[in-house]
């Protein structure tokens, strides 16, 4: 899925919600994953200059999971430690996207290179 503007963020949310509903994930897991997806997709649009999102079903033995990968070719993350610790967060939401998503999902992987871009992959097991 292309991520060019904030309307695309909604499409990502709807896709995640739909997949998880179809696979009978709990409401809480759906809400957490949809919220994390929204944060990452929004980050890609606002900070990453746009990018792509990819949704996959994953299996690990008997476990079924949903995996979202969000990639942009933006400036990359300058201070990773700060970004993952809540950054400029002052409680009202600014800077929470990365650290917040990490808290919400079962698996969180991030790759970022200055000047090249950022790729975040999150997974939620059923």
């Amino acid at each position, binding site marked *: 899925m292309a991520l060019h503007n904030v309307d695309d963020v909604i499409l990502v949310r709807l896709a995640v919600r739909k997949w998880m509903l179809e696979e009978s994930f709990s409401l809480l897991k759906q809400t*957490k994953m949809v919220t994390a997806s929204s944060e990452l997709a929004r980050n890609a649009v606002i900070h990453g200059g746009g990018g792509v999102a990819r949704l996959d079903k994953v299996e690990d033995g008997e476990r079924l999971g949903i995996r979202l990968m969000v990639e942009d070719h933006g400036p990359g993350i300058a201070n990773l430690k700060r970004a993952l610790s809540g950054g400029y967060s002052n409680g009202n939401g600014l800077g929470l996207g990365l650290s917040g998503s990490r*808290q919400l999902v079962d698996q969180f992987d991030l790759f970022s290179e200055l000047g090249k871009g950022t790729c975040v992959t999150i997974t939620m097991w059923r």
Partner: protein
Amino acid sequence: MNHIPIIHVGNYLLVTVQVDLHDSVALRLQDDITIELVKVHARGVLIDISSLDMVDSFVGRVLGNMTALCHALGSQMVVVGMQPAVAITIVELGLLLDNLHFARNVDQGMVLLQNLIQADSESYGSGSGHAHEQE
């Protein structure tokens, strides 16, 4: 474009959010609330988010901005109806929203609004900027 209606209930404004609060909708709502607040001298705003199945940091910011907006216009704001899954999620997300007032439903929200407005009046004493309440 989606437009969220604002209903007048006595001295308050009631806003029921039933669509995704994305950028253009949120900005439009902030504008509309500002206009209505000033137009009818409403003392309180009740935002019903019981239909929202997700609140991310952007929506949190919007709600925070709306609260600040209401305060700047001499009014109080209460958010009601947050879904349990959403409540758990925002806490784990780290969204504090501690400058916001919450209630379980519209009835409790109205009571809270009344209390907040009463407390507000008392802390500023009588006779300061309350002339329009007599209208």
